[in-house]
């Protein structure tokens, strides 16, 4: 499995947990294309904050690296890295040390 697929799978698991915690029915069975935040995305800002922190934690535990997904690059990006599972996976990969 490619590194991106591994990270997507990790994010999908976290989205499922978040969907249960925040009772978001549309995110019970997410896949890589699932929209999360922004236009047509079901997450509100508090749910997004939790997801981002969960992803940073999970990356830290799995790969022993600390990344910050809420950096200047994310804030100034033309397309938000938070909009979908796959865009979040790309954002994680971009911030992982090579």
């Amino acid at each position, binding site marked *: 499995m490619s590194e991106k697929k591994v990270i997507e799978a990790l994010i999908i698991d976290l989205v499922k947990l978040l969907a249960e915690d925040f009772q978001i029915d549309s995110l019970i069975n997410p896949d890589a294309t699932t929209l999360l935040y922004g236009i047509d995305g079901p997450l509100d800002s508090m749910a997004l904050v939790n997801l981002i922190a969960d992803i940073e*934690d999970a990356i830290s535990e799995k790969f022993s690296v600390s990344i*910050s997904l809420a950096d200047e690059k994310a804030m100034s990006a033309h397309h938000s890295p938070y909009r979908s599972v796959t865009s979040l996976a790309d954002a994680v990969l971009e911030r992982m040390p090579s």
Partner: protein
Amino acid sequence: MKTIVITGSRKGIGKALAEHYLKDGWRVAGCSRDDASIEHSHYFHFSLDVSDEDAVIAMAHKIKTDFGRVNALLNNAGIASMNHALLTPAKTVNQILQTNVVGTFIFCREMAKLMRSTDNARIVNFTTIAHPLNLEGEAIYAASKAAVESLTRILSRELAALKITVNAVGPTPIDTDLIRGVPEDKMKALLSRQSIQRMGKVTDVINAIDFYLSEKSDFITGQVLYLGGVS
């Protein structure tokens, strides 16, 4: 064992707070630009600049790995500059804002992430009576703490859903390095503006923070408590 993060723990109020909470059975993660001045089996020191985002993230990562979570944060680190506004260089302004505002913000952000799974998580920020008293000669210091107060109030709302309370304490002058060098007549004039006209003690600050940290204080957030009867 509960974990408390205390910034600026090498000397002054921060060191006294660290020693107090160690004695009280907490694990203390402290930080300062320099090496540790406390030796204790439950004290862990990080040498960093509080406004260095990468260093604070690395500290949070280490705390998460070693201790799992954080129960409380005391944003004590701060710098002051007593000078007339017309004699204050922009470099000094930036240094004060970086440490007092940016540093406080980064610690709140990173440690709040480690507080999400805890009950009764607490953040206590440090302000000053120089802000409500509009003290001459402390324009930038007071302005930086006004920003900290605003940050405290807004974070108290943003973090309420995570069951984290965010409050601030505003000490009067205390005999620490921060105020050493202030002329005696200026200090007398300042104390005369307090309802209780004496220098503060570290135990006054500890008392206020103990109150905020108490489990019973879970309905108290977004508050600023000035000591000495200043309002």
